């Protein structure tokens, strides 16, 4: 069983945060997908607010979160670089490696890297174009 493309892309963002040391766990990814579904989503703002509420980035890392969000969903590599340079938000180098940015949606095979928990829990997620 694989995730629909839209859900896989959302789950990919949660994994990206995890790989940069935000400390979120797969259980939160499931909640994130549920939250996006509950909100519609009607806009990227819904997705951003769902991510803030469920993946719970630490307040002192909000700038880095915003940069990664823009990089992941809009392919804004400059924003990602800005976030990386923030002296208070050093990216952990030993956390299993940072995923390449940006990753175009088309090149991300649905569900390829999703954990079994994420795959199971997102079973009911509707396929939807996010951009």
């Amino acid at each position, binding site marked *: 069983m694989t995730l629909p493309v839209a859900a896989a892309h959302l789950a990919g963002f949660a994994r990206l945060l995890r790989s940069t040391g935000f*400390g*979120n*766990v797969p*259980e*939160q990814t499931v*909640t994130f997908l*549920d*939250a996006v579904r*509950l*909100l519609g989503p009607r806009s990227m*703002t*819904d997705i951003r*607010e*769902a991510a*803030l*509420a*469920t993946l*719970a980035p*630490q*307040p002192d890392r*909000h700038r880095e979160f915003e940069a990664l969000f823009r990089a992941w969903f809009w392919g804004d590599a400059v924003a990602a670089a800005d976030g990386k340079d923030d002296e208070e938000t050093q990216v952990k180098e030993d956390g299993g490696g940072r995923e390449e940015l940006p990753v175009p949606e088309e090149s991300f095979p649905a569900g390829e890297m999703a954990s079994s928990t994420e795959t199971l829990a997102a079973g009911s997620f509707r396929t939807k174009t996010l951009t």
Partner: protein
Amino acid sequence: MSPSAREIAAASPEVLLARLREERYLADDGLATAIFLAIRLGKPLLLEGAPGVGKTEAAKVLANILRCDLVRLQCYEGIDAAHALYEWNYQRQLLAIRQSGDREIDIYDDRFLIARPLLQVLQAPDARLLLIDEIDRSDHEFEALLLEFLSDFQITIPERGTIAAKVRPIVVLTSNRTRELAEALRRRCVYNWIDYPDAAREAEIIMARAGDVAEATAAAIAKAVRQIRAKPLAKPPGISEAIEWANAATVLEKGGSPWPEAFRRAIGVLVKDEEDMQYLLPQLSRIVEEALA
């Protein structure tokens, strides 16, 4: 069956935002979305932010909107299960044993059980909202105890068995972030960081909450308070202090003090730390005049 207050309020984040506004709580979109998600996902809501940004008030207003009684558990260093869960009333148990003579009595009857906030909420989960206030004041052991409660919404009383909530209660936790909470606790909650409002929204809050304050006064107060919060103060003023300042300055102005003077004379309701006051006084005239400009 008619929809419950919970279902009506949590129809959408926009409905919640409007209901909060009706209760004179001017939230931003992020907070309304977080409350909506907490209700709809059946998860606790964790509100973090500096003291005085309106975290506790958000829970109180939410209880009103959902037509629930607010059950507040104020955390402090050393708080334990007996204060949060339940206690047996030993004196009453002893008295009952003495009075019973040869009769057998159940000393673990409801009569002898003192329900503390967490148990109170489990007993009526759709009629009570639990506020766990200033969780960062408690210690790690208490956080672990809460984690168990927030996972299953049940309490095990060895003498009585397990008491579980029939429906998931609404639980709001607040933290001033004086220390990091356990990651496990953060992960279990829907999270929102409440920041100080921008000057325009704070002026709107002052207008909504203060008694008889002119719009220009509210705008000036909001601007000045923003400047004051940017200073390195031990206790930066919260929103409620800004409202008090607006009220006090208005009263003084009506009593005959001209405007800049009324702000300066009422400063005691805004800044309550003596060292902060000494630091601020030399700059106050300039801050007030700039805000009034």
